[in-house]
């Protein structure tokens, strides 16, 4: 029977061309949508690697003024102590302003042997890991012993360690960054710190010292769960008083996260709505063509009934034809679709495309089945004598 359907469709390829291309186009659109959904979903499923609840960011707006680097260091040390003295503050860390869910980025080339990667760079202090409750994969985070080392200590995130040293343990290795030689003392879990939907790129953490203190104007503060607006106000006044910052801003990481997520979710929803309309149109077209096919082929259907096809057989045949048509489209479509991973058109993992391809194929078959169901039922109701009488 399948061979029969193929023959029938092949012999009518001119009439079916339009339908095949329509299904093909919707397949490609669906494939794009599913690729993007799959990619974002897989990223979303990755663990965050840190805790952002009850973490506040204080942005001083401009660097702290001071006679020299040491006096600036002192201002921050005093501020940290004062903050830690507050009842609802758990931990405080200085940070470069590319804190999680911020829009700032800072990067640098990092070298290990012949490997040269572009990496995010974070300047932090020894309490940073505690504030964000980061986890180490191997080695350790910064501590007091890192004061005057031979080589400046750095911590890599897992992505950077993988990119630089592969499967070998990165701890203890010497890497080069900005003409300095640095020693890797630990590898931390990846922080999904750009958005819930973005993968972590390689990252390298360095300790803030007198050479970099001038550029620092951001703090992360872990507070207790019952810290309220009144407390935020107290804290604001303390920081503003100590640093004489004019543009001090306090924001909650959880709110910053929501904002960052929206940057992905909103275009995604728009894409879904647009493609939804498109698919709806294609479905209507498909439905119409199948419907038209049946009214045009009433006498053929009547004939088949007369020759011994059952009612179920007739609607099955129409469904089968629609599926064969869809298969033609899907074969052509898949040929295009597999070019994306093969030619590395976008920088997405091949697995994403494969999942999207599978989902799109299933979706199209489902769509075709749904569209063919009612016309098929209609065809089954055709009485052979009446149909044969018409032409």
């Amino acid at each position, binding site marked *: *029977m399948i*061979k*029969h359907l193929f*023959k*029938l469709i092949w*012999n*009518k390829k001119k009439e079916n061309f339009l339908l095949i291309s329509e299904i093909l186009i919707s397949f490609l659109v669906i494939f794009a949508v599913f690729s993007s959904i799959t990619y974002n979903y897989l990223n979303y499923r990755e663990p965050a690697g840190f805790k952002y609840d009850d973490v506040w960011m204080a942005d001083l707006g401009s660097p702290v003024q001071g006679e020299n680097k040491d006096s600036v260091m002192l201002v921050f040390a005093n501020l940290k102590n004062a903050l830690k003295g507050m009842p609802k503050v758990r931990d405080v860390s200085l940070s470069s302003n590319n804190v999680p869910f911020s829009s700032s980025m800072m990067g640098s080339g990092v070298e290990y042997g012949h490997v040269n990667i572009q990496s995010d760079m974070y300047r932090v202090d020894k309490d940073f890991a505690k504030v964000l409750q980061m986890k180490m994969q191997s080695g350790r985070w910064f501590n007091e012993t890192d004061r005057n080392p031979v080589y400046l200590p750095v911590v890599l995130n897992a992505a950077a360690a993988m990119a630089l040293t592969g499967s070998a343990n990165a701890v203890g290795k010497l890497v080069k960054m900005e003409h300095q030689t640095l020693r890797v003392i630990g590898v931390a879990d990846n922080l999904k710190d750009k958005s819930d939907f973005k993968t972590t790129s390689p990252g390298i953490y360095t300790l803030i010292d007198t050479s970099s203190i001038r550029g620092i104007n951001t703090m992360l503060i872990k507070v207790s769960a019952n810290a309220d607006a009144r407390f935020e106000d107290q804290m604001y006044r303390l920081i503003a008083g100590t640093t004489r910052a004019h543009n001090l801003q306090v924001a909650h990481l959880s709110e910053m996260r929501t904002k960052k997520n929206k940057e992905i979710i909103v275009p995604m929803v728009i894409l879904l709505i647009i493609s939804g309309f498109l698919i709806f149109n294609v479905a209507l077209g498909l439905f119409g063509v199948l419907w038209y096919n049946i009214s045009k082929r009433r*006498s*053929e259907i009547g*004939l*088949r*009934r*007369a*020759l*011994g*096809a*059952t*009612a*179920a*057989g007739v609607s099955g045949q129409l469904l089968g034809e629609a599926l064969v048509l869809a298969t033609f489209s899907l074969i052509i479509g898949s040929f295009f679709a597999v070019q994306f991973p093969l030619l590395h058109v976008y920088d997405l993992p091949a697995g994403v495309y494969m999942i999207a391809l599978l989902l799109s194929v299933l979706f199209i078959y489902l769509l075709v089945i749904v569209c063919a169901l009612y016309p098929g039922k209609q065809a089954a109701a055709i*009485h*052979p*004598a*009446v149909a*044969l009488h018409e*032409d």
Partner: protein
Amino acid sequence: MIQLNNIEKVYRTDTIETQALNNISLHVQKGEFLSIMGPSGCGKSTLLNLMGLLDVPSKGDILIDQQVTQNMADTKMARFRNSRIGFIFQSYHLINDLQVLDNVELPLLYRKSTAKERRELATEALVKVGLGNRIKHFPTQLSGGQRQRVAIARAIVGRPQIILADEPTGNLDSAMGDEIMNILLDLNKTDGTTIVMVTHDANMAERTHRLVRLFDGSQVQ
């Protein structure tokens, strides 16, 4: 073999009601070759459609091989049509998108058979009607008479016990008509196939066992 009891067929459209058949009772014996004659529009095709289970009577009942066909389940009815009845339609009803061979194979497609069997049987049937050299043609590439012969090949390919032929020679010249008539006679004699044939040709009717005349939906002889 085919038994019609007090058959009535009324066609209703929005505007008119046509009494196509009126109180027909007819018994076609197994192995009989019956012909039906009558003026155009008297209900010959309607009668044949009812015998072939393509339509249901408005009144009366139809027995085929002693089985009541009223209220028969769809699958059983389909199997009945497929295995017992070969239909030759007045206007051929070939599928133009299929080659001649595929058209003739159609009835076999709806029963258990292998592709090879179908091919062999269909080719054999086509050779029998003198179209062995046209199997790869499409119906639109054939003459009217050739199409009629394809329709005949399709009717006989499944070796049915009953053949219902609606003017099978109507579109053929007399030589070709004779040939088709010989095929039918031969099927009737050697295979014992029961045949009911509608014809306008008295000479053809003469060569069959019995003649039924219809006039205006009623049996007159």
